[in-house]
């Protein structure tokens, strides 16, 4: 793991003259080096990075530094906003025309996840957009590919057109289309064979299918783990076939997902969904801000939030939140929170989901997560717990009374040093401060407040995509 972008920026910008109220070209130049690195490490294509950095540079020079932000926070904000703007776009909803059937073509490289996504999409469309999909696979090449789609169709309970006697992709499409028309399926999802964008013959096959089927959507399936090559494959698919949208798969992995930016930049087409698991309902709306933060190494906070929401006892969390709001978050609560964290699983996994800047505020230091350090974190958490355990009830509820002699006693009781106890108290005090700020929506704006309220169990403010879509229909 690398330092988060904001930490790096902080480091490099610190050396500049202080007390400035504008971002100088000097600031920007130094910052852009770090941003370039962060983006490259996230697998954004190097040409795209260049373009992106130039755009951001232009926007950043001369900008007023907002009062609440330090220069590096300001830069991160500009970068993030720009990323969100580029990644964002029209909604995930597939727009259908009043004709039967509407054809949706699924295309992409081998192994990108087309077949699984086809199944997910069918399920999604029938559940959320009231469609009646018919599935068909025209992958006559990969062993058992058509069978795979049939099995999936059975599992999600949607019809599949098999026509095993046919072996020509275009012919299969034709009969599936006819069948859909006659039977009254309003949507035909065509799962095509994975192919290399430089395979002329197979690209021509796609062109032929597209020409004849006239799909309302041609969705390019891109693996979130893709590296620099994303630009080539996506642009080639787009140039030859004409892509209308992108689905980013395997986002449940820990790739930073810079390919999203590359693909978006070269196709200009909206990213409509993200695949987040092997189950057939693991298809989600695409949130540009989530992915932007992930690309910048700010962690997938929202994933963490979801996890926390599942695991954390709501009532307990509400109580904690209340305390934070009232600035009554005690060491007792701190300990309770550590316990909650333990419930969530191993520290290193958790940390990987958290933005590191936030980690610094919450934990007092930024963990760089090597195995050793993860172990150290785990020990540190245990130690923190031990220290709090050695405090009296009174001490836990009012840290102000913990003087030098009490600290000595606590250190002894917990088998730690006075320094450890001091460190802990300092962290705790700092954490209270940060929480106070966050609850006021200060530095981190609405985001921080939202995050905390979500972490603490309040129902997410995030629009419920599924329900919303249904209502609209």
């Amino acid at each position: 793991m690398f330092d988060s972008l904001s930490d790096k920026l902080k480091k490099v910008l610190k050396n500049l003259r202080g007390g400035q109220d504008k971002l100088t070209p000097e600031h920007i130049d130094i910052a852009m080096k770090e941003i370039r690195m962060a983006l490259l490490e996230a697998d954004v294509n190097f040409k795209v990075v260049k373009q992106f950095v130039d755009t951001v540079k232009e926007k950043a020079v001369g900008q007023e530094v907002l009062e609440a932000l330090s220069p590096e926070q300001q830069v991160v904000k500009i970068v993030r906003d720009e990323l969100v703007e580029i990644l964002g776009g029209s909604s995930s909803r597939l727009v259908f025309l009043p004709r039967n059937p509407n054809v949706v073509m699924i295309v992409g490289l081998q192994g990108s996840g087309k077949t699984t996504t086809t199944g997910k999409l069918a399920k999604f469309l029938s559940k959320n957009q009231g469609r009646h999909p018919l599935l068909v696979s025209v992958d006559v090449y990969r062993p058992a590919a058509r069978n795979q789609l049939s099995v999936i169709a059975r599992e999600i309970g949607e019809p599949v057109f098999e026509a095993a006697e046919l072996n020509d992709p275009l012919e299969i499409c034709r009969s599936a289309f006819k069948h859909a028309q006659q039977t009254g399926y309003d949507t035909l999802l065509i799962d095509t064979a994975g192919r290399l964008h430089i395979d002329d013959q197979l690209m021509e096959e796609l062109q032929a299918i597209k020409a004849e089927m006239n799909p309302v959507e041609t969705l390019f399936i891109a693996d979130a783990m893709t590296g620099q090559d994303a630009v080539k494959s996506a642009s080639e698919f787009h140039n030859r076939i004409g892509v209308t949208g992108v689905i980013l798969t395997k986002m449940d992995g820990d790739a930073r997902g810079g390919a999203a930016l590359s693909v978006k930049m070269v196709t200009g087409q909206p990213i409509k969904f993200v695949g987040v698991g092997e189950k057939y309902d693991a298809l989600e709306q695409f949130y540009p801000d989530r992915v932007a933060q992930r690309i910048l190494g700010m962690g997938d906070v929202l994933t963490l939030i979801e996890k926390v929401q599942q695991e954390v006892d709501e009532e307990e969390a509400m109580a904690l939140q209340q305390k934070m709001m009232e600035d009554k978050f005690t060491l007792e609560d701190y300990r309770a929170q550590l316990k909650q964290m333990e419930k969530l699983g191993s520290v290193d996994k958790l940390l990987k989901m958290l933005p590191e800047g936030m980690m610094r505020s919450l934990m007092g230091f930024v963990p760089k997560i090597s195995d050793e350090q993860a172990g150290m974190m785990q020990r540190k958490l245990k130690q923190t717990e031990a220290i709090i355990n050695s405090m009296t009830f009174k001490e836990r509820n009012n840290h102000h009374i913990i003087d030098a002699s009490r600290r000595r006693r606590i250190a002894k009781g917990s088998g730690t040093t006075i320094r450890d106890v001091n460190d802990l108290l300092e962290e705790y005090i700092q954490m209270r401060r940060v929480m106070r700020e966050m609850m006021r929506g200060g530095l981190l704006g609405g985001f921080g407040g939202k995050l905390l309220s979500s972490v603490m169990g309040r129902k997410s403010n995030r629009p419920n995509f599924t329900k919303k879509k249904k209502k609209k229909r």
Partner: protein
Amino acid sequence: MGLFWKRTKKQESEQPANEQAVEQTSTEQALEASASVELESQHPQPEQKAGFFKRLFGKTEAQEQEAEPIVRAPEQEKKSFWERWGRSEENAATPASEPEVATTSVARADAEKMSLFKRWKASLNRTSENLMSRLDDVIHGKKVIDAEVLDHLEEALIGADIGVQTAMEIIENARKKVDRSEVSNFDELKRLVKDNLLDILNDTSGKGISSEVDVSLDIQPYVMMIVGVNGVGKTTTIGKLANRIKAEGNEVLICAADTFRAAASDQLAIWAERTGVPLIQQKKGTDPAAVVFDSLAAAKARKADVLIIDTAGRLHNKANLMAELEKMKRIAGREVQSAPHEVLLVVDAVTGQNGLEQARQFLKAVPVTGIVLTKLDGTAKGGIVVAIAKELRIPIRYVGIGERMDDLVEFSPEDYVNSLFD
């Protein structure tokens, strides 16, 4: 046939953990189906049997000839094979695009000899855009190596997915030498970077398994486990590997331990059929470790030389799935001493920086001994394997350059690095 089955069954029934496996008719069918293969290759020439590893790499004409009759997929047998599986024709049908079903090992070897490097290189250079082509534009008309040249070289390395860190180190090294005037022209610069990459790729000795030659001949069955994230090409690689190892005169058995993905074992069954190698499978949803157990018993019983285990694709950050993999490994080690002897991590050439994390995490769960880099026939360069070799010292064993049975070549650091540059 029947006798063989009974022997296996008896042995299995002595193993308590295997009760459910024995009940599975698919296992019986698999073993029965494979028995015809067994019958014909049951009594191989002794020297043929002994020289697995030697033959795998240092083959002679004579050995090729010997191996030939074992690779076969005549029409009739194909049919009966499928009939015994109780499958319909359509499922058994080989996709129209597969022209290579009955390749003989001689033909294969010839083709390989002729075109190995050429084909590989061709696939690497498919778009005529290699690391150097853009650089040449920059260099054009210049006499000295300046910052711009080095920047472009760095970009070229990054563009091949070698990774920012590794690329920067290599360039930093070059910069120093340029500053000290140890490198003065572009050819020297090229050579330097090449050597740098080669050092990394070659410095994997002592780690993993760089060649089967090192492995004791006593080991039987030689258990190979194929692992990786979803969709990288594991199953296809197994088809290719089975074909290759079998063509060397070995008795190969495949285990379908992907019991999760839809039609995964059907896919593998078609490869088994193409290569004429028996397959052990269970119904979807079975504990993969049970299938592994099953296949180990079968491999022992039929004295197979090599057992190749296909595993379900899994993301390396899913603890439960990695634990499942670890369990398979444990079961293998319990049944056959020091198994799995080889664990190949399959990495897709399009993979970016996440490939390194994949390697790290898989290495934690199973003793990865080598990398298979697939889909090099595309435009991606798969440079992340350099970072993997650098940090984890895992050697790259094979390269996948297409979807056909013989589209697997041994990795050669020299060829790889050269193909990036020339």
